[in-house]
């Protein structure tokens, strides 16, 4: 509230045109600027309409219903070439979201481990982490994608010479081990599962990673419910453990309890309803493997490159966040008898998060946007499918570029909003 006017003569008598009035001046300038912007946008629009009509180029969004006609190598929802451009757009969007989501998780894991490792007292670990950060941060992401695709994954053998891995011994071992220690309720479904695997069932070749596919038959919903119950339970246990620790100082292994619940509950449910999940194992037929799930090398190389590239930046952010916590904090924790692990987890990291979260958001946004580089290795993301193939075939540059911009903008704003919410939670509560 400005009180300038109250001390002067009545306002009405002074309301004249005058450039010396800063309020009036600034509103005039703002109105003029706004008018110029409106005029610019309008003239762009009018010119575009006139030129499109003159060149006889189709416009509007009707093309979204037209038959796309091209195939896509990775589809998370059913798609074939007789479906529409609109459907292809959704397929591309989901592919972008998939690689961005997994990339963010993987980059965060790598970044935290490497950031902490760079501060390690162990010289070898420290040197390795430093080398990782310096190498990955300083090489362009496109180069790293090409490196993983052309120099690493393409050197894998062809389908006929695939490296096969059998999972049967592994699951058999787990199953009989559990039964051996009196946990037959857990061990039996695992042993059953192992029996259904004809070795080998996991294959690695230059067409990707082929793994058995679970086929859910009647009664599978029970497993899903058990999984949800386990997740909710571990969440509740986590909160309870935190509360108890804060009240009494007694630690509780909430993470391991939760993990055990999430694994054990669905297994027990599966056993209870008679093991409704069967396994479809891939087999080599003709050129490629038929059946099972396949992760294409385009996706793997893009995911690895993005996660490792962004992980380097996140490592530095984590390191700076930890260094920003004063040494007295860890000294105090040590003097209370906490060992290195809990000190880091309970004292240092929570305080470091306040410094880490804002720049971390930028890295998540960068990773999402960099996923459009996947076009170089033929990964069918939003940019390749929509701003690439669809634009080329329909020629409707204005509509398609506008939609693509809007989509990336929306993804980024949602990411920012989530991180902003999280930042508020970890921020220092000032009293």
């Amino acid at each position, binding site marked *: 509230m400005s009180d300038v006017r109250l001390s002067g003569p009545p306002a009405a008598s002074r309301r004249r045109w005058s450039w010396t009035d800063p309020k009036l001046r600034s509103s005039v300038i703002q109105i003029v600027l706004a008018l110029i912007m409106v005029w610019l946008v309008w*003239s*762009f*629009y009018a*010119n*575009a309409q*006139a*030129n*499109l009509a*003159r*060149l*006889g*180029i*189709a416009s509007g969004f009707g093309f979204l219903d037209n038959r796309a*006609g*091209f*195939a*896509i*190598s990775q589809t998370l929802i059913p798609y*074939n*070439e*007789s479906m529409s451009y609109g459907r292809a757009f959704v397929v591309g969007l989901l592919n972008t979201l998939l690689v961005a989501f997994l990339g963010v998780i993987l980059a965060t894991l790598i970044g935290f481990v490497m950031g902490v490792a760079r501060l390690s007292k162990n010289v070898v670990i420290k040197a390795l982490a430093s080398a990782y950060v310096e190498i990955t941060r300083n090489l362009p992401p496109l180069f790293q994608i090409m490196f993983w695709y*052309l120099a690493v994954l*393409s*050197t894998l053998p*062809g389908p006929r010479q695939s490296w096969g891995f059998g999972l049967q011994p592994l699951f058999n071992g787990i199953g009989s081990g559990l039964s051996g220690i009196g946990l037959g309720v857990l061990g039996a479904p695992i042993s059953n599962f192992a029996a259904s695997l004809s070795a080998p069932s996991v294959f690695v070749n*230059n*067409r990707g990673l082929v793994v058995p596919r679970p086929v859910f038959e009647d009664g599978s919903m029970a497993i899903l419910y058990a999984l949800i119950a386990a997740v909710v339970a571990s969440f509740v246990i986590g909160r309870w453990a935190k509360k108890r620790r804060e009240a009494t100082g007694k630690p509780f292994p909430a993470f391991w309890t939760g993990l055990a619940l999430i694994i054990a509950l669905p297994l027990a449910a599966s056993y209870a309803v008679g093991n409704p999940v069967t396994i479809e194992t891939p087999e080599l*037929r*003709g*050129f*490629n493997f*038929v059946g099972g799930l396949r992760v*294409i*090398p*385009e996706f793997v190389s893009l995911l690895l490159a993005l996660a490792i590239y962004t992980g380097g930046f996140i490592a530095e952010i984590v390191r700076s966040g930890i260094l920003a916590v004063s040494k007295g904090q860890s000294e105090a924790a040590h003097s209370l008898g906490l060992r290195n692990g809990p000190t880091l987890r309970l004292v240092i990291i929570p305080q470091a998060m306040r410094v880490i979260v804002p720049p971390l958001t930028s890295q998540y946004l960068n990773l999402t946007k960099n996923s459009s580089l996947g*076009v*170089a*290795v*033929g990964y*069918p993301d939003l940019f*390749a499918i929509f*701003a*690439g*193939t669809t*634009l*080329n*075939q*329909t*020629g409707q*540059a*204005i509509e398609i*570029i506008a939609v693509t911009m809007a989509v990336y903008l929306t993804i980024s704003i949602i990411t920012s909003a989530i991180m902003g919410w999280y930042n508020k939670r970890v921020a220092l509560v000032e009293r």
Partner: protein
Amino acid sequence: MKRILFAAVGLLSLAGAVNAATLDEVKTRGSVNCGVSQGLPGFSSPNDKNEWGGLDVDFCRAIAAAIFNDPTKVKFSPLSAKDRFTALTSGAIDVLSRNTTWTMSRDTTLGFNFAGVIYYDGQGFLVRKSVGLKSAKELQGASICVQTGTSNELNVSDFFRANNMKNGEVIAFGTLDETVKAYESGRCDVFTADRSQLAAVRLKLTNAADHVILPETISKEPLGPLVRHGDDQWFDLVKWVYFALLNAEELGVTQKNVEEQVNSQNPDVKRLLGTDGKYGEGIGLTADWAVRIIKATGNYGEIYDRNVGPATPLGIERGLNNLWTKGGIQYGMPVR
């Protein structure tokens, strides 16, 4: 990235006012901006001295010769299949001469006009000999590499659907180089493209003899130069450069004998070479426009033989691309 740049230029120029006649612009600029491929032997590729050569390149040189009497006044823009149309729409190039298939949507809703068919082609499949295939019908379940933004990308889906072949995968790459690299590295069993392109790509592979082109031709691929909608004079000019090349071959006018042919008494030759009538003025040039073209590049047959014909590494017979008088379907409209 170039793609984004073209899209941005495309947006801006669509939003700005582009109205000047292309021929006037070309004359003021002093050169023709011609969109070509990023390197396809026989059609458009740079040699070791960085000079462009090929069927598509020679066509642009013919346009430059008709306008400036100098076939070197061309600026070549190498374009990927995906970026080529945006470049033409935006005005970054005047003519796209880049082994582009004449399709209805490109000719209509995309806003282009095709000036003619400089090469009649069809789509085929390149596979490794070691796979031991006889026919494309045996490609069930195969991984196929294709360049995105091409008619090939669409045809291959249709072919597999029509023949009820399932479980295959089509991986689309942004440029020809990336596509070929993926095929070579074993990511795909098959590389599919126009047959002429397969022949050219095969020669570039490390061991050409290990690869074979399957006998099937699964589509019609009439390749030709194209221009933007909205400038009929420029469209006419490009179209008649093409017809001049064909008519010259039909009338026996060659790079060597064109000087003597100017004195010919054959009325068809006289009209083509401008000694009778002033047909060249109809496309904004002078009467002797065709003389300049043939002097610079030779007639269609000479261009063909020099770049893709039996005497070249590609060694492709004339076939459909022979003149209509010799069993092909190349047919030049009469100058009259």
